[in-house]
């Protein structure tokens, strides 16, 4: 059918492209270009090309912050997976009438501000908080535990904040899982461990990867959770970017860190892409 494009079609495509051009493509390009420019105390940047921002990232302090962030995000992802997988499996395989209600109950906390939920974690973990009060009352400890303002507190906050991001893609994946595969495996003589490792895990791999990407990326760039739960001691990449932008006023260095984060994200998306089938891809979003 050959026909002149309608006004509506042209208008909507142009609005969408114009918007994404101005608020996505141009800012992304600016970030990339700025990371190769030089710091200037009197302006935003000096237009002199350099690679020094990237060299500076090899500085000991920055490398250790980067490693700390990756370790934290990785640990958080593994814990979310360990907690979330059996949970998603249980609710996805419960009676279908209950299943969607059970999922809704996971999503509700997700609608409340993550800042507020982080604040609630503070109230639980602080020296005179609920957790210590409970443990003291039960006689398990005689001194309040100093959990708040530690690495452990940041980790607990991250897991709490991001657990739904792990459960949702796993649920979507496990829900479609065909029970007959399990029976087939058992008929062929596999025990439950073999069935789990050779059948269940490979079939739910897209969900596992999607959930891991959705937890890992935000965990790595957490910004107020380390400030609130970790005190000033446990700073992560997100805090480093903030410091370069708002305190040190070194925008080129800040953007270089941001480019590194984006490259890491690109690598993770690529892993996801090659491990998923066409129809599964939309699920991540």
């Amino acid at each position, binding site marked *: 059918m050959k026909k002149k494009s309608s006004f509506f079609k042209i208008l*909507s495509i142009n609005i969408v492209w114009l918007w994404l051009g101005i608020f996505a493509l141009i800012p992304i390009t600016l970030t990339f270009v700025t990371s190769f420019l030089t710091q200037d105390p009197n302006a935003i940047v000096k237009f002199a090309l350099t690679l020094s921002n990237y060299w500076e990232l090899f500085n000991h302090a920055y490398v250790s912050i980067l490693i700390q962030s990756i370790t934290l995000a990785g640990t958080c992802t593994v814990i979310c997976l360990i907690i979330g997988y059996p949970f998603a499996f249980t609710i996805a395989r419960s009676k279908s009438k209950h299943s969607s209600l059970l999922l809704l109950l996971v999503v509700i906390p997700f*609608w409340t501000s993550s800042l507020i939920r982080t604040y609630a974690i503070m109230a639980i973990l602080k020296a005179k908080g609920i957790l210590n009060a409970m443990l003291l009352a039960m006689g398990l400890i005689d001194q309040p535990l100093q959990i708040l303002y530690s690495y452990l507190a940041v980790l607990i906050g991250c897991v709490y904040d991001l657990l739904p991001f792990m459960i949702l893609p796993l649920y979507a994946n496990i829900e479609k899982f065909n029970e007959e595969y399990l029976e087939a495996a058992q008929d062929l003589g596999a025990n439950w461990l073999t069935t789990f490792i050779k059948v269940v895990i490979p079939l739910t791999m897209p969900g596992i990867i999607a959930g891991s990407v959705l937890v890992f990326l935000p965990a790595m760039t957490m910004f107020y959770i380390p400030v609130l739960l970790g005190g000033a001691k446990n700073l992560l990449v997100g805090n480093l970017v903030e410091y370069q932008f708002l305190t040190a006023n070194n925008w080129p260095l800040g953007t270089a860190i941001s480019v590194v984060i*984006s490259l890491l994200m690109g690598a993770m998306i690529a892993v996801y892409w090659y491990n998923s089938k066409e129809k599964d891809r939309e699920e991540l979003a």
Partner: protein
Amino acid sequence: MNKFTKYFYTICVYFFLYLPIAIVIVFSFNNAKHSLVWQGFTFKWYASLFNDSAMLRVAWHSLILGVLAATIATIIGTLAAVSLFRYRFFGKKILHGLIFILILTPEIVTAISLLLLYSFLKIPLGFWTLLLAHTALCVPFVAVTVYSRITTLDTDIFEAAMDLGATDFTIFRKIIIPLLLPAIASGWLLSFTLSLDDVIISYFVSGPSFDILPLKIYSMVRLGVKPEVNALCTLMLAFTLFAVITTYQSIFKKKPS
């Protein structure tokens, strides 16, 4: 896993998810400033919150910002989803990939890229920069929400409408919008809550001329735990739940289609 272990485990996870929220709600009614011991029921933290005119102004700012950002994002996001589904055009695959990538991009990366844009264009930070940034944050989420629904539509409807002489705009107005209304509404709601809760992007692109609730809560929380914050958080939780439940009921239960 036997049945009992399953139930026990599931309940433990729900407990973990809900305990912090429950604590905030309970302590917003506790008649004690610092103690964790229950000292009796009170509304005084709510009263002091409502007497705080600065707080009310900030809440109003956030509400306006959320409604405007969600509305603009819903229009652009819906147009994006419809264009991706119905039309062939230059750079369609790129557009699809871009939306997918934008959803995964850590907020801090988005935040500084927008800050750079505003600085190079010399736009002073304030209401407009916040509105545009929040809209930019929400557009991809709306696009994906609407797109996942639009792919379930039967394309024969469009052909039938075209055969009967409907223009593209008529099809959009009379077929696509009514059929996608639930998805468009969830997109709006998702955008509204994203805007209302956003700390990271707002932290970078806001100015002193327009203060908003998440940043106000952030500064209060950083200074320490105050009972008024509990009250404020409880109100926001109630408000979000109310908005979600009423929207779902009015849109999803109206017609048994």
